[in-house]
């Protein structure tokens, strides 16, 4: 009260002049500065309110299960709009097109592009383009013409419009909206291909929408008489320019971002910021050049994601991901709330039943017809045809949303006398699609699925066999190369590896981009983590050291931490301990079916789509892939060993590797089959289920690894052609990469490898550590001693009992 009393004189004086000199009678302690601050304050307040709405209905989870979030937000928007209208008698807050197109939409599109599953997207790009371009044109044309026909027929009464205006209206309402699609499809988990088709279409049809909108707008201004063939041809050309130009702008910005992240090693703290700024600039630049801004932003995100994820530090990557989600989700919330609020405004409502109903009907019908037609054409060419159910869902998923509303607000009232009618219709259409179709989408999908899965797997044999078939098909597809797509993909991959990686990625990042190396790396990390956990459980990491009567030599060179790391990075602890635990567990009753359902590996085809606005999901299928990979490597090793008599595979290995030796010495990585042998050997180390017998099987292992750490030791180079089976391992496991050593330090670490537990069955094949410059790949040595000349210092393998720590021979 005192404050108010004090502030009142200042308020009064302020009312006269905006912060200019005014006479005050006393020193104001607190001033009410509403006028100055009201704009940012309102913005912040509205953002807060919109996000609080989200909070409100999350309190009631059963509500969200039935109605999609977007629908609920619209409802809350209505409520809020009603309140404001009641208070102000005029709708002071509405969704302004400028705000929508420049402040709310870009981050959604950027997020969509950045999180896009690229392989899927480009794999289906043809189909997506067909739907986006031809489908949207079809929708626009048919809707416009149908409405025009009905108008001519008099069904709509007396409205002041014409063919061109109706075509314009058709074009802006024809486009499937990305915001709505994301919002609804996210809660309905459909299969990947279907999702990417609808989603991709919703993003890429902006190119068409922008062109059609501008073209018809221009035509309306020109008037019907001036439209001749030239103008139409210009229109078609403008489509290509806008679409392709927009994409190019996006790609250019993607290149910029990638190049930038290559150099931002030292400013990691604001590295994430660059992504956002440049992404936004790509949107604005395209808009400035009157090209398709959404396409630009999408392609910017799509093209740069791989390189920036590789270049940036992991923390930066997760920052970018989280922040994008915050912005995108936040924007979407605000958009839907304001869509609701904007409706509560009698000044915009013009009701024409026929127009509205006909629009709704035609949108629906022509969407389905378009989808079925195009799919029928596409299925002639697709590797995996789309079945009827998918087409149905795709047709039903043609949701319209805020983009249409934004566009309709941009219309000039003088040219379009029926602007209000169009606004009303657009709003109704948006509400219809988002709410009604959103609500019924999930039950529809579930219902259709039930119809499909009429054949249930009755027997275990069927279940197992079905899964086998899935895996079999995936394998055959891989073997046969999925011909057609693959050729282009291979060419692109080669181009990418040759040029783009070199240009856009930091050297370190280049190494780690191979998928197998990634798996390998993750396995290592997993094993190291479980080792540490085990150590903690047992009290200290010293528990392993006690088990060997090792010499302490290596401590001299490396220090205690490294020795443990190196010695026991061998994940001797995790796997077998795990299995031991399992054995000790009592077997309970279980339902075999349930078990199979839970634990059968899913084939690649069954992996679900990973783009989600709400969750920051890391690929959960990686665990499965890692397991399978580990097993495959193990069994290959076994079969190598068992087949050593027959085919002498080591010979082939060295031949293979030798051939690639020259290329790989100093080059960026490409993993192929050779490192598989390396990996198998490494994994073999990890096998140890018994602590008996440590042979220096890994003798050459660190040696190779150190070479891979960038040091080219001429002493070893000479041997490479004849002996060395392994390419220089640039992709060494991280735990080895940390050790900055040169070749002189090889001795101690080689000794360190002695501690590797080794299965008894393999002992015979392992030569002990030889500190010679020749290849010590014991695997090879054991397998084909005849081919290795010059291994002068190869003592016979010691008997198993001897293995307790005396591996070093000189």
């Amino acid at each position: 009260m005192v404050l108010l009393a004090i502030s009142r004189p200042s308020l009064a004086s302020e009312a006269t002049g905006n912060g200019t000199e005014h006479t005050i009678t006393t020193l104001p302690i607190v001033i009410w500065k509403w006028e100055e601050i009201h704009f940012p304050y309102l913005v912040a307040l509205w953002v807060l309110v919109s996000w609080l709405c989200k909070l409100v209905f999350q309190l009631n989870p059963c509500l969200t299960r039935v109605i999609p979030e977007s629908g609920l937000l619209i409802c809350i928007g209505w409520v809020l709009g009603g309140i404001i209208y009641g208070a102000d008698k005029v709708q002071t807050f509405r969704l302004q097109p400028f705000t929508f197109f420049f402040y709310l939409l870009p981050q959604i599109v950027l997020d969509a592009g950045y999180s896009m599953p690229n392989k899927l997207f480009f794999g289906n790009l043809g189909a997506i383009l067909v739907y986006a371009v031809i489908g949207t044109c079809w929708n626009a044309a048919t809707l416009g013409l149908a409405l025009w026909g009905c108008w001519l027929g008099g069904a709509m009464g007396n409205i002041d419009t014409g063919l061109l205006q109706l075509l314009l209206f058709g074009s802006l309402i024809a486009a499937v909206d990305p915001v709505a699609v994301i919002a609804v499809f996210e809660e309905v988990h459909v299969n990947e291909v279907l999702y990417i088709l609808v989603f991709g279409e919703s993003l890429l049809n902006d190119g068409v929408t922008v062109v059609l909108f501008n073209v018809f707008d221009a035509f309306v201004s020109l008037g019907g008489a001036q439209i001749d063939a030239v103008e139409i041809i210009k229109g078609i050309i403008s489509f290509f320019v806008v679409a392709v130009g927009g994409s190019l702008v996006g790609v250019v910005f993607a290149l910029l971002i990638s190049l930038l992240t290559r150099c931002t090693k030292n400013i990691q703290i604001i590295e994430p910021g660059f992504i956002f700024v440049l992404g936004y600039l790509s949107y604005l630049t395209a808009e400035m050049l009157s090209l398709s801004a959404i396409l630009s932003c999408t392609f910017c995100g799509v093209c740069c994601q791989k390189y920036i994820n590789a270049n940036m530090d992991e923390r930066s990557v997760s920052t970018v991901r989280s922040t994008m989600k915050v912005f995108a989700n936040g924007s979407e919330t605000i958009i839907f709330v304001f869509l609701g609020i904007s409706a509560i405004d009698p000044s915009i409502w013009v009701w024409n039943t026929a127009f509205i109903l006909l629009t709704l009907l035609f949108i629906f019908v022509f969407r389905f017809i378009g989808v079925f037609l195009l799919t029928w054409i596409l299925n002639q060419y697709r590797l995996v045809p789309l079945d009827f159910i998918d087409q149905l869902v795709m047709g039903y998923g043609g949701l319209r949303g805020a983009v249409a509303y934004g566009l309709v607000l941009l219309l000039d009232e003088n040219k379009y006398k029926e602007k209000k009618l169009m606004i009303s219709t657009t709003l109704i259409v948006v509400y219809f699609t988002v709410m009604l179709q959103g609500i019924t989408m999930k039950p529809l999908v579930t219902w259709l699925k039930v119809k499909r899965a009429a054949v249930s797997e009755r027997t275990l044999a069927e279940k197992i066999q079905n899964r086998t078939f899935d895996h079999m098909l995936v394998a055959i597809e891989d073997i046969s190369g999925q011909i057609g797509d693959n050729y282009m993909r291979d060419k692109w991959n080669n181009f990418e590896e040759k040029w783009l990686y070199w240009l856009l990625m930091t050297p370190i990042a280049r190494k780690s981009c191979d998928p197998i190396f990634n798996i390998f790396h993750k396995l290592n990390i997993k094993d190291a983590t479980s080792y540490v956990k085990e150590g903690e459980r047992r009290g200290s990491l010293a528990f392993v050291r006690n088990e060997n009567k090792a010499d302490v030599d290596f401590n001299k060179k490396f220090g205690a931490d490294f020795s443990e790391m190196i010695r026991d990075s061998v994940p001797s602890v995790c796997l077998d301990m795990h299995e031991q635990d399992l054995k000790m567990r009592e077997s309970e009753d279980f339902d075999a079916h349930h078990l199979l359902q839970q634990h059968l590996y899913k084939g690649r085809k069954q992996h679900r789509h990973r783009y989600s606005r709400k969750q920051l999901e890391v690929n959960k299928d990686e665990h499965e892939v890692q397991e399978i990979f580990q097993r495959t490597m193990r069994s290959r090793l076994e079969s190598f060993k068992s087949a050593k008599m027959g085919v002498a595979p080591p010979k082939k290995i060295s031949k293979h590797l030798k051939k690639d030796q020259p290329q790989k010495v100093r080059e960026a990585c490409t993993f192929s089959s050779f490192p598989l042998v390396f990996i198998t050997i490494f994994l073999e180390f990890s096998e140890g289920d018994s602590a008996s017998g440590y042979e220096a099987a890994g003798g050459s292992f660190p040696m190779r690894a150190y070479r891979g750490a960038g040091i080219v030791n001429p002493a070893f180079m000479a041997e490479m052609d004849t002996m060395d089976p392994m390419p220089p391992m640039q992709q060494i496991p991280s735990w080895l990469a940390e050790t900055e050593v040169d070749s002189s330090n090889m001795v101690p670490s080689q000794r360190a490898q002695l501690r590797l537990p080794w299965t008894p069955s393999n002992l015979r094949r392992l030569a002990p550590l030889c500190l010679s410059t020749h290849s010590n790949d014991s695997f090879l040595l054991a397998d084909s001693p005849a081919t290795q000349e010059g291994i002068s210092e190869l003592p016979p393998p010691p008997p198993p009992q001897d293995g307790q720590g005396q591996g070093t021979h000189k």
Partner: protein
Amino acid sequence: MHIVIKLFGVPLSCPITNSMNIWFSCFLFIIVTPAHIVRLYDRFEALDKEKTGHLRPQDFGAINRLAMNPIGDRIIGAFFSPGQETVDFHSFVRILAHFRPADKKHPKDPSMPEPVNSRTSKLKFAFQLYDQDKDGKISRAELLQVLRSMLEMQVTEEQLESIADRTIQEADLDNDDAISFEEFRKSLEKVNIDHKMSIRFLR
């Protein structure tokens, strides 16, 4: 020795190892269409990095994604006839031809040999994946092996054995504790094999 086939005017040179293969190459046209042969040959050459005209297990191993497939190695093994270490182009195509969708239009001619992509042949192929020792039966041990590779590691050995036992119980009709081909076929009579074991591009 090479034969040069002209397919749609594209000369395609296939290495032929012996004269018998000329007969096989004609047979190829029956099981796969000519256009597919060209593409498969491209793929064969791409896999055969050393240009020997044969594929070895390592060449298949170079396909990284197979390492991430639980039964990838078995599939690779299926390409190699017992005792052989290499696969030539004909065997390659022959195996892949199993996965062609069955030709529903032409009625089955009883005098012709069983086409490679018929339901029976496909089932035989699947059966061979299980039956590694080729004794005509899937024994419990063999089934266990397959199960082990297809189930996640957290499944215990007892659970695996239990599943294997039940599976054999379901399918085994003559109580010999193994699944013969007939029993295998019978257990899958409700499954649409043609749909599940076909690759579209081989249409």
